């Protein structure tokens, strides 16, 4: 009910975009906002953009994913409506590491029961892992307390990006 009061009148949602460095978070954010993606550098702090989707105003927070910056993620947890976790599907070496980071996030009180969307990014690359491998590798199958969804996408090509946002909006509406 609280959520309704807060988000229904203006239909504003706070989305938190996290994931390891080089996953493609900033590329995804810019693609969502239909901005140029040719000069993106690793994020040191954060980027925020507002985009419209399905009648919602989505305020998307993109935080840098380098290992040194990860401890600062927690500063952005408050009032998150949907957690969006971005992974580089071709970076199989770090699939388990990114799974471990995600697991820590899911244990945070402030993110309790927050729906989770996983963007399996860089699907354009030849050795990108399919959804089932990603679910296993990330340990998603241990999640039972909130809805989760994998969305295969390519941020550079813009494929699958909109579908993920559609899931976000549809899973919030029913709250």
């Amino acid at each position, binding site marked *: 009910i609280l959520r309704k009061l807060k988000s229904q009148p203006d239909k504003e949602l706070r989305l938190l975009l996290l994931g390891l460095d080089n996953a493609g978070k900033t590329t995804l954010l810019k693609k969502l906002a239909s901005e140029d993606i040719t000069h993106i550098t690793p994020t040191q702090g954060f980027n925020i953009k507002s985009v419209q989707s399905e009648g919602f105003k989505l305020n998307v927070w993109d935080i840098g994913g380098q290992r040194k910056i990860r401890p600062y993620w927690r500063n952005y947890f408050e009032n998150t409506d949907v957690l969006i976790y971005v992974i580089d599907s071709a970076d199989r070496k770090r699939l388990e590491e990114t799974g471990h980071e995600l697991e820590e996030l899911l244990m945070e009180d402030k993110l309790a029961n927050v729906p989770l969307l996983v963007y399996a990014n860089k699907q354009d690359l030849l050795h990108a892992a399919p959804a089932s491998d990603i679910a296993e590798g990330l340990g998603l*199958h241990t999640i*039972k307390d909130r809805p989760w969804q994998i969305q295969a996408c390519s941020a550079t090509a813009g494929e699958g990006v909109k579908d993920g946002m559609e899931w976000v909006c549809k899973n919030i509406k029913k709250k």
Partner: protein
Amino acid sequence: MGNCCSRFGLPKIASSKSHLKNVVLLLVGLDNAGKTTAAKNLIGESLETVMSTVGFSRVSLTHQGCSVVIYDLGGGPKIRGIWHRYFADAHGIIFVVDASDVSRLEESHQVFANLLSHEKLEGKPVLLLANKQDCEGALDEVDIVDLLNVEAVVNQHRCPTIVEMCSATTVRKSHNKLDPAIRNGFRWLMNYIIREYSDLNSRVESDMAVQRKQIEQEKKERLERIRKAREERGESMAD
């Protein structure tokens, strides 16, 4: 069964609270069968927002003093691999078939037979929904039972089963937006689970305990592999 205290005149609230049964139902079947639609139909939620599930979603309701959670899993071939990770929790199974899609009945049969042969599901009650009866050419109960070889499969694995023909997109304002066949099937499934609750639930609890240990072990091993991978890259674990 298991409800003796209320007979001895304990206050109703206290007794119903202490006997609140937690029930988990597993909702599975091929992609596009209508699982998510059926789940939403059951709780009277709008069907406009249904999207293909590539993951996990949950629906909660209460029924006869039971707190019921339905695990709605993605049915596509690429995500089916996660199903078995959710078996331990389940007291019962809802399997949905698109009865109008004859081309995928063989696939549905394979998946169904495979599902019930799993040791964590054997003997658990099954509600089989032959969905999309509103579509032209939808097969009826008898054909579905025949083509999915339901009799042999459920007998082999000792799963009490009921088959209902339904249309999950049916919206009846006077009936809480509920397709009566889905409600009937659900009621049957819940009645069975309530009757057999102590057996079913002790099995669920022990299976879940085993699984928790297994997951802890997997996590430990994963952490060890991450540590090694980082060492190889010349990073330290703590910084």
